[in-house]
């Protein structure tokens, strides 16, 4: 039996049996539904007003088109993902401390790094699948609404933006994992996630979002209302934060005293 596959199997079992997966699925079901609702209202403003879906004087900016909707889905992943993916990483790493099962994992007949790698793979797979789910569900909703502006190139560009945003956001789960280990539970990583969401807003507002790892995915997804061309430095900053988190987590499992 391959150790990595064995540990991964156990991680999947824990995810499958835990409540976290259902909670994040619910959050990521609600988000594209809301996005679809906005698109529907934009497409049918008069119907929305007469049906009482929208206040008589309310106005929503934007246009109901596939490019706008793909951008909205990317924003859901960028902003929602910071929180939801953070929850996933907190749970996968922090639960061993909260449930006090960490000690059962520290003297197994293979390198401890295998456990860290399997946990990171579980985070990546879960968050990757969640991104895929948001995109898939969003596209079904988009077709249901009958959005305008569909073309092969719109699809390619839209999906590329979503994939890049998802990869950037998923990368930022690694520092959360470190805080879950360092804080031995959920509290520290969740606090860290909330803090980073707040910082990302403030730092982006003052114009330095392109240099703050947690602002970059949202900036790229078009949350500021205009497109942002990702530069090498932005990718480097996100990867550096991710690598620091990954290395910290690795070192913690391997070298920290585990009480």
């Amino acid at each position, binding site marked *: 039996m391959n150790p990595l596959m064995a540990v991964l199997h156990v991680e999947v079992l824990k995810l499958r049996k835990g409540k976290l997966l259902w909670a994040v699925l619910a959050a990521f079901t609600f988000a594209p539904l809301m996005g679809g609702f906005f698109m529907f209202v934009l497409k049918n403003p008069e119907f929305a007003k007469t049906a009482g879906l929208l206040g008589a004087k309310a106005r929503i900016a934007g246009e109901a088109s596939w490019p706008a909707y793909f951008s909205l889905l990317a924003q859901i992943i960028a902003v929602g993902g910071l929180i939801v993916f953070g929850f996933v990483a907190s749970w996968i790493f922090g639960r061993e401390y909260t449930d006090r099962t960490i000690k059962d994992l520290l*003297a*197994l*007949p*293979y390198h*401890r790094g295998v456990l860290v790698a399997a946990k990171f793979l579980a985070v990546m797979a879960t968050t990757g699948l969640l991104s895929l789910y948001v995109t898939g569900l969003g596209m079904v909703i988009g077709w249901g609404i009958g959005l305008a502006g569909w073309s092969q190139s719109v699809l390619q560009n839209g999906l590329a933006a979503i994939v890049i945003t998802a990869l950037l956001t998923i990368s930022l789960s690694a520092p959360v994992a470190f805080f879950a280990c360092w804080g031995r539970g959920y509290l520290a990583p969740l606090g860290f996630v909330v803090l980073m969401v707040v910082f990302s807003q403030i730092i982006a507002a003052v114009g330095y979002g392109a240099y703050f790892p947690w602002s970059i995915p949202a900036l790229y997804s078009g949350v500021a209302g205009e497109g942002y061309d990702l530069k090498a430095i932005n990718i480097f900053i996100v990867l550096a934060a991710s690598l620091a988190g990954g290395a910290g987590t690795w070192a913690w499992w391997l070298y920290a*005293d585990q*009480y």
Partner: protein
Amino acid sequence: MKKLIEIAGLSKNYKGLQAVGNLTLSVGKGEIYGFIGLNGSGKTTTIRMLLGMIKPTSGTCFIHGEKVSLRNHAIWKKVGYMVETPHAYPELTVRENLHAFRRLRLISDPEVVDNVINRLKLKPYADKKAKNLSLGNAQRLGIAKALLHKPEILILDEPVNGLDPAGIVEIREFLRELAFDEGVAIFISSHLLTEIAKIATKVGIIHQGRLVQEVESARLHLLLNRRLVIGAHEKEGVLEAMASAGFVSSLNRDGFIETYDAKAIQRPDDIARFLVYQGFAPTQLAVEEEDLETYFLRIIGQKGEGGL
């Protein structure tokens, strides 16, 4: 006897505080080593160092003659362990938890789970979620996880905590069987000397991080204090008569005269005859032996010398 567990000069300091100091001990094949100490005496820290979870400040641990280190992970193949209160994944059932650990232990045969469930009498709870288990059954699950891979070395931290009296007897017999019939080396920590003395072949007492005594269980009773307790109507007269015969004796808190004189303890009949001749016929005469808990407290200095 082949040493399967060896701890040599092990110490651990936390921020200037010594949790474990210069600890040396060993456990051979088929031996049960009872590691006794109060809460906070350094038992769990020692076990965590032995399992490579905490780095010692100094000293070394060996499993099967191989040094415990991060790189030397192959040594854990033959080691089963349970540290502190057993915990399991709460949302998984007993069976699922054991299958999860079977995979983590790289065991491909799923039958080992049913075998260990039967052996630990967990069958009625096999499909119960771990979060709904009583402490006693959680303890059984913890031991079951430690035994899944049929280890040659078993390290158990307070394994009978939370078990009812029948459960304690059952686990005791089970551990005996593992050690004496299957040759497993067992290192077991507890704060209950009486309980451990019933199964351990050797007992080590740890206090404030130091091994204050190590003794073969068979020799343990030789170390227990014994005294001769005398009941009499005229206590002053008995005390004077005993003193005149050279026996140091005193009046204890319960109103009895007691002596720790070896000759008196060995020949209580002589003392009875002597007191009768002196006109102080005893109303009670008994040789009493210190119980193990009192002995333990005496050794670690928690109770006055000679107290029973």
